Structures are given as C-alpha cells and as structure tokens.
C-alpha cells in the first residue's frame, strides 16, 4: 500500500510536483502516467526514498518515506530510472549483492536467485559478467535484484522501455504474477498500450498535478473517449478542442 499526500517538490525555478495525492492498493497494478516532465519520476523518487518532498508526505505500508526510511526500503522493490549494472560483476553476483544488503544469505538467498533466473529467463547469462549485456538482459538483472527480497510493494519506472516484444512479455507476466500474489505494484509509463494491458487503476499527472484518477473504464467514460491514448490526451490538456493535437 502506497500513499502520497500533498507531495510538493521544487527545483527552482521549476515546480516538479505541486500537491500530488494518490494511493496505490495491494493486489492492484497502479499506473502513473503523464507527458514528459509531468513529475512521474520525481514522484517515484520520493516514494522510493531517494528524494525528500518539500511539503506533503508519502507512506509505504504506513511508514513515512523520510522519517522511517529504512523500514520503507525493506518493503519496496524498485526498478529505478537509473538501472546501471556493475560491469565486472556477473548477473548472479548483482542479485546476490542486493539480497545480502537486505539481510538474506545462504541457501535461502541462492534458492531465490535460482527462481528469479528461471522466471526471467536469465539462465544463459546468469554467470556472465554484465559488460556487453543487451538492454533486455540488463533490465532482467535489474528486476531480479529489485525483487530478490520479495517486497510487498513494487515500483517500476518505465519497465519495458527499450525492450523487444519477447522481453516485454516476460516483464508483463512477472507483473501479473505479483498482482496475483496480492502485492502493490506502481508503474510509471508513457506506453498507453502497456498501461491499458496491465493497469487496474490510473493516476494521470500533468505539470506536477493529478488531473484525473480512476479505473481505465471510468476514465474512458469521464472523457467520452474509447482509445486510452485519446483519454490521455484529453486529460493532460495536450489536445485542443476540435481534435487536433497541439
């Protein structure tokens, strides 16, 4: 369960977030959508504890992301905007490193790594050093290290950005699987097809504010548009009356 209340963040002279409220519930995939520069990544960074809000607060499972940072960190798994890998470590060593930092170890940790290697289809590069990994392989490693401690809350920034169809499908299946397990999943995306496919709930951001939120169908009804892309354009004000994209 993730809650944001009145989040505000200013990078003078820009106001990145201007009073953002939303909630992401367990057992649901919540999509944070909006045009470039709407504040999606900033909101996510506050939720995963790397930024402090100038005003407002964020809670994960009831714990404050600033004052109870460590408790929040042990309850979240994050695929951040920066998903860099250590060039000289193998895929398995990456996952093991993060698992150990979460206090895991021994046979239990190795078992979980084996499981993730299988689910994500990493068997043929698990023992290879990350130098030269393809984008798809890199994202899989980054996902595995984010999920190794089995977090209740999963935050994914553009999870399929740059992936081919096969890799994207693996990621989608992983997200559905975690939803079935009752976890809280928050994804940031600008791919409307992906959003339509995965999300149970949408939060639409534009210029640092929440302009609409609700189930995809509710938003369709609200805007009178059928295609989610049109819904998006209508909500974020990117389309002028008369149907032309500005």
């Amino acid at each position: 369960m993730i809650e944001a209340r009145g989040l505000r963040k200013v990078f003078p002279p820009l106001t990145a977030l201007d009073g953002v409220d939303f909630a992401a519930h367990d057992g649901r995939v919540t999509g944070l959508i909006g045009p470039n520069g709407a504040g999606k990544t900033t909101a996510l960074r506050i939720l995963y504890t790397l930024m402090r809000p100038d005003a407002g607060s964020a809670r994960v499972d009831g714990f404050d992301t600033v004052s109870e940072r460590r408790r929040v960190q042990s309850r979240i798994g994050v695929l951040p905007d920066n998903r860099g890998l250590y060039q000289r470590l193998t895929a398995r060593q990456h996952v093991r490193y993060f698992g150990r930092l979460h206090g895991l170890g021994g046979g239990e940790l190795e078992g979980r790594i084996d499981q993730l290697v299988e689910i994500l289809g990493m068997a043929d590069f698990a023992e290879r050093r990350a130098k030269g990994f393809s984008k798809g392989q890199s994202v899989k490693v980054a996902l595995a290290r984010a999920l190794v401690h089995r977090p209740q809350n999963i935050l994914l920034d553009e999870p399929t950005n740059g992936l081919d169809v096969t890799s994207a499908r693996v990621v989608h299946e992983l997200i559905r699987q975690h939803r079935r397990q009752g976890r809280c999943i928050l994804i940031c995306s600008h791919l409307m097809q992906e959003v339509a496919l995965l999300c149970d709930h949408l939060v639409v951001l534009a210029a640092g504010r929440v302009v609409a939120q609700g189930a995809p169908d509710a938003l369709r009804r609200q805007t009178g548009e059928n295609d989610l892309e049109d819904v998006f354009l209508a909500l974020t004000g990117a389309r002028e009356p008369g149907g032309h994209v500005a």
Partner: protein
Amino acid sequence: MWRSIFVVFAKEAVDNIRDRRSFLSALVYPLLGPLLLGGMISAVSGVVSDNPERIVTIPVAGAEGAPHLMKYLDQRGIRVAAAPADVTAAVQEGSVDSVLVIAPNHRQRFEAEKPAGVRLIVDSSRLPGLLSVSRMLKILGDYNRHVGRQRLARKGIDARLAQPLAIKSVNVASRANLTDFFLFMVPPFVIFAVFLGGVYLAIDTTSGERERGTLEPLLINPVARWGLMLGKFLAALLFTIVAVVVQLAAFKLTFLWVAGAESNFFRALDFGAMAMILTLALPLMALAVSLQVVIAAITRSYKEAQTYLGLLPLVPAIPGMVLIFAPVKSQLWMMSIPAFSQTLLFGQALRDEAVSWAGAATSAGVTGALALGLLYVAARLYEREELVFGRR
C-alpha cells in the same frame, strides 16, 4: 549493520580486483619508486667507491710531454689511457668522465722548474665527472707538493715553510657513504603510495557509481548511507594498505639486488622498520582515503574527481622531497602536520634512530582525528540528494 558494511566492502574489493585501473594503482604504481631508487643506487654506486684510493683509469692527451708526471701517476696506481680525438665532445657526451690535457710546452717549463701547464676537462653537470675531477685534483695537488718539496730540499729549504696549514677533514656520518641520502628518498615514495593506492577505487565507488547509474539502486537498499560509505572506505583502505606493503617489499628486494644482503640499505629496511612504517602510516592512509571519498562525493563527474585526485599524491610528498636535500631536526610541533610528521617518523625508523613515542602518538592522534572528521563529512555528503542526482 556491520554485516552490511562487510557486504559492501567485499563486493567493492572483488569488483575492483577485476578493474585494471584499481589494480594498477595498488600494485604497479607503487613499484615505480623502488625501481627509480634502485636505478639511481646502481648508477651512483658504479662511480662512488668506498675506497677513494682504488685504481682508476684516466685518459691523458699528450702524455709523452710529461714523463715525470706519468711515472708519478703510475706509482699512485692510476692507469693512463689514450685520450679520445675530440676531448671536449667526448666529455660532453659522457663517453669519458674527464680528460687530463698536457700543455705542449709542459716538458720545457717543467725542466726549467717553471709552472708547467695541465688542463682538466670535465663536465660539472655530470656526477661521475665531478667525482673524478675531485679525485684527480687531489692527486695533482699531491704531485705539486711532492715535486715542490724535492725542489725546495735541493735548495736547502724546509718544505713545511710553504705549508702554513695542516688540513685534515673528519667525517662524522655514521655511515661514510651515500646510504642516508638515498634512504631519505624512501619516505616521500611511501607517502606517494599512501595517497595513490586506493584512489581509483575511491573515485570508482562514488563518482563512478553515480555516472554508471548504479548508485541509485544501491541507495534504495535498507542500509544506512554511512554504512555504505564505510564499506567503500574500507575497501579503498585495503587497497592502500596493499599498495604500501607491495612498495616496501619492492624496496627490500631492490636493495637486495642492487646493493646486496650485506649493504646498509638492506639492513636499514629490516622487518622491524617495515612494520613500524606500516603502523605509522595507517592513520595517514585513513586520512588519504577519507579525503578521496569526500572529493569523489562532491565533484560532479568521474573526470572532475580524477583531475583533483590525480594531483593529490604529489602535494603531501613534497615536504619529504625537500627533506632529502635539507634534513631538519624533528620537533614535537611538526608531529601535528599530517604527511610531514609521517615523513619524519619513517626517516627515523629507517635510520634506526629511536622513534619518539610522544611524536608518534601526536602524529597518529592528529592525523587520525582529521581522518575521522573527514569521514563524518563524507557520511553527511552521502545523505544529500545531490549525491545521486548531481547538482542542479
């Protein structure tokens, strides 16, 4: 918490052992000092002999014009060789150290008991030239007195009349050779290794992580930021310790090869002195690495950090280089200066002087306190949002 610190430490150590640059700065760069010093010692010991009376060969031009002098040289055990055709050029390019040139009218003037000309051609910018000319001047001076005494005696005059001073110089150095001079060069090289050993690791694990985008995921883990910082600090410290140990071992081996097991060099750098240097260096290593972590945390990029940290090792080594040529008597207040105090203490350990405990404690205390202060600053810097996302 200690478990997490160890996890970070172990990961950084393994990761950087696989990194060529970290490996170079910890294992290969420290060898440059011993190699350089070894080269200098072997070059110099070829021309500096412990026995100034040893047989030498000197090229003489026009030797047939001074048979009396040649006979004297022969008696003194000096071999006379033919001079090269172009005397000046030969001396300049160093193919001979010096040449004695006999003036054409030497024989007539000598027989007429007038000052007979000889010239010594030498390049004073070359150490072998300087040494050979001073030896030659001494021999020629001896010859002057020897012949003068004979001539005066023939005229019934006591030669001592022409010798108002009786000069004798007394050398009080504990070792009557250049050992001390070269041993003074060891401390600045050690200081250099202290500031170089972990530098790439310190940059790589902070600026490097930020630039490659691995710092953001790392900081989301439930470990206090100061713990992550400390793990990286300890890994860089390990590399620094390895660098200094490698360097000391290389000095020991170089001294063995170049000067031999019986040499003063080899005996000065015994295991006691090595252990002492390593212990005295530990607080300075902590200071060097914490400074590196701080600089890596505030600079904007890997390149910027590298610019500052690449020059850093030179600065603390400078006082030691000055001390080679102008040794000072160490005083307690000097022990409060990091790098300088260690340079003085290393020198004491090497020259078998008693290392003053008050001095060593002051040095370790002040340097260690500064290192702790910098670690605190580094921990604070790790808390800033700018650490991950850069300055805006």
